[in-house]
């Protein structure tokens, strides 16, 4: 059994455990990972990190730092990347291929300064607002960070933690990543790599990656008491756990949600579409809130299913399904057998790499979705019937063809859906898209200074004597 002694990071410093009693031990098949606990002394060190460090930076300094981190991770022989590729499949169950895809997404996100500038520009009133006072009508406004942000990260999609952290950094917050038990390495190595870029950089010195367990109420409460914002990515239990803590800080919640698709299809018009559906089903093993779990299909179901099967076979080679516990396969079989019982059509790969259930009956079985590449197809006569299937908790709706998205978007936006995506690109939110309805403005406060009384940016046409009655006020 290999043993991996990992540090936690506090303000850029690597902290290793001194003894067996002050560390967590994570056991995997052929690997043990050790991670230090946060004791009182370390807690004080986290609290002592100066939030002003980030305020010294201009946005360009931040973008440049992130670009350098991206360059580092692009290097094939970068030690931490090699370490991630070596150990991560054992820890988070991701296949090497999916891990590579995720790291590729992360590098792409941070390596282009102009891209991140556009992110800032699209998600804040203007990108200069972080560095300066910006005139807006009769005021000048400036965005200041919330302060200390804790990111409670889920382990399902490795890039999610880094994505959350980067958004906190972009908005000049001091950031503490809570390492997910399901994916210990990704965020930890990402934060560790900051020191390789510049150990004295304010971003390095203001970023931490620590761990706690669900039952450690004292530690958790102490962290939550000094934080200004909590970004939670996680499943129902995790989100509920923190919500019950009655925190006074800003809560920025991502999930739990589901994805679905609405498709008006004919093979003549778009023979590749089922392949794109297979891609969206496969990319995050349906563990992400944007991943489709069911779709409404107008068109020839039989030929669609035939092509979808081919697509799923293809993506089983591109991104092999990670080896899961036997429970997952048992769960899939329960679901498939139950659907056979009620008369739905069931298609499955012999190794349960994927499955498709065509819903002939609207009665559903009281059984949860097993995730891991299973999709329910609801045949519909009219595309507007799909609106009945948009249930609470649907976050992302992929729609094809595009003109159907324009046709349905007003109705869909009334249902609570937060993103209408392109099918086959569910993991590439386009610029301007808000994740789970949250823009960067949630991570800052806008401070306003009103201009002099005499300063007038707009003149309003007011009927004569309109304010006479209120002349003492004006």
């Amino acid at each position, binding site marked *: 059994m290999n043993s991996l002694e990992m540090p936690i990071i506090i303000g850029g410093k690597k902290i290793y455990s001194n003894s067996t009693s002050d560390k967590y031990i994570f056991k995997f098949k052929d690997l043990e990972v050790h991670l230090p606990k946060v004791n009182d002394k370390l807690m004080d060190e986290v609290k002592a990190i100066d939030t002003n460090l980030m305020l010294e930076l201009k946005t360009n300094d931040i973008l440049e730092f992130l670009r350098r981190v991206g360059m580092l991770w692009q290097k094939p022989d970068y030690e931490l990347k090699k370490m991630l590729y070596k150990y991560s499949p054992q820890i988070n169950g991701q296949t090497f291929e999916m891990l590579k895809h995720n790291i590729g997404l992360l590098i792409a996100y941070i390596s282009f300064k102009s891209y991140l500038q556009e992110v800032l520009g699209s998600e804040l009133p203007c990108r200069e607002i972080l560095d300066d006072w910006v005139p807006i009508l009769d005021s000048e406004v400036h965005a200041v960070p919330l302060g200390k942000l804790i990111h409670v990260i889920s382990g399902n999609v490795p890039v999610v933690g880094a994505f959350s952290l980067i958004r906190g950094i972009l908005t000049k917050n001091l950031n503490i990543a809570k390492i997910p038990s399901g994916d210990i390495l990704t965020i930890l190595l990402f934060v560790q790599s900051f020191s390789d870029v510049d150990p004295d950089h304010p971003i390095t010195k203001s970023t931490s990656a620590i761990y706690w367990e669900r039952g450690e109420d004292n530690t958790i409460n102490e962290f939550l008491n000094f934080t200004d914002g909590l970004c939670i990515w996680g499943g129902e239990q995790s989100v509920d756990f923190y919500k019950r803590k009655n925190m006074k800080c800003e809560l920025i919640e991502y999930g739990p949600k589901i994805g679905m698709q609405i498709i008006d299809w004919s093979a003549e018009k778009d023979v590749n579409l089922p392949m794109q559906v297979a891609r969206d089903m496969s990319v995050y093993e349906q*563990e992400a*809130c944007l991943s489709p779990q069911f779709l409404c299909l107008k068109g020839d179901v039989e030929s669609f299913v035939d092509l979808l099967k081919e697509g799923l076979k293809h993506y089983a080679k591109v991104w092999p399904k990670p080896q899961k516990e*036997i429970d997952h396969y048992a769960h899939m079989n329960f679901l498939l057998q139950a659907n056979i019982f009620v008369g739905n059509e069931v298609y499955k790969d012999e190794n349960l790499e994927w499955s498709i259930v065509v819903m002939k009956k609207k009665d559903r079985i009281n059984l949860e979705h097993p995730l891991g590449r299973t999709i329910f197809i609801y045949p519909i006569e009219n595309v507007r019937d799909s609106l009945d299937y948009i249930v609470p908790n649907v976050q992302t709706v992929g729609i094809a063809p595009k003109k159907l998205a324009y046709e349905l978007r007003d109705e869909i936006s009334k249902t609570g859906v937060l993103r209408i995506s392109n099918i086959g690109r569910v993991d590439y939110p386009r610029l301007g898209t808000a994740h789970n309805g949250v823009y960067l403005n949630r991570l800052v406060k806008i401070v306003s200074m009103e201009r002099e009384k005499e300063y007038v940016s707009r003149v309003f046409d007011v009927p004569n004597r309109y304010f006479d009655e209120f002349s003492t006020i004006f």
Partner: protein
Amino acid sequence: MKLSDNTLVGPEFDCVSFQGDSILAWNDEQVSAYQEKFIIEAFRHHYSNSEEYRKFCENSNIGLDDIKIKADLVKIPQIPSAIFKSIDVLSIDRKDIVKRCTSSGTHGLISNIYRDEITLDRLLNSISFGLKELYDIDINGCTVVNLGPDTDEAADIWFAYITSILNLVLDAHNFMVKGELQCEAVYNFINNNSDKKLLILGAPPLLLHFINYLKDNGLKLNLKKGDIVKTAGGWKKHTGIMIERDEFSLLMKEYFNADEEGILDAFNQVELNTVVFECNKKSKHLPPWVKVIVRDPYTLEDIGYEKLGILSYLDASSNSYPCFLLSDDLGILKKDCSCGRSGDVVQLVRRVKKVEAKGCAIKIDSNLLRRVK
């Protein structure tokens, strides 16, 4: 034993199963002959009388002619437990239902199982059978201390109901009133009846509650050899206080003076029509009318003995619904037991984890799609 070919399944089943010789001493051939006859007859009965089940068989490409011999038993379509949480599955007229049985709904949804008189009688017989065959307890042969409610208070809740009906076959006393375990009454009753053979029965959380009462009041019981402490029903929603079986046994030894061989467990789930009892070697013995097939979680194929897989059941004792189940449990099937009884024993290992999504996805289920018009 020779099985007749042309008698009705009902009376013969009951006669052979519950009134014959010790069937846990049967050899493999006898068990095979029994199962070939009665499980196949049960299949034919449910196929012919349950529309839902027949459709399931048709959807699984199984017809009456496909199930003829013992080797065909593994092909009998088995219903996932989840179906009973969604659909009423019946092989009888509704007017013949005498008891609606529901699961405790640990995970939010409850199973509904409808039993007629025949089915309920056989369930009770399976209890009598287990007590007699495994503990040599006959009618009025022992006094039951049930840490549960009486039949009225138990209502449809399966585990509470099944323990409460013991008074139909034994001298049973119930000690839960309006949801409160009467610990003092239990303690006094046991002390006042120490001359009788006692069977203390309760779900693990209730027994632990009683132990804590004894601990808090500085009391201990003094059970004698031959008395039995029987757990059943599992920890359900009380997983927060769950302790390992070994540790639990130590507590029972300390506070009850229980004999190791007298600390035993029993298994049942609302969808199964048989209570499976544990012998003093801690093996759960299957009566011949229940065939357990351990299935590969990937392929659902029969993987035989000594391998971990999904436990599935073919229980011939049900008349009112097809008791052919694909359960939510993982376990192992074993052959024979050091206690000397023959036949299969089943070891339940754990529930299949249908865990919460790790990530930001919520898994869609019927609660979400129930709103679909």
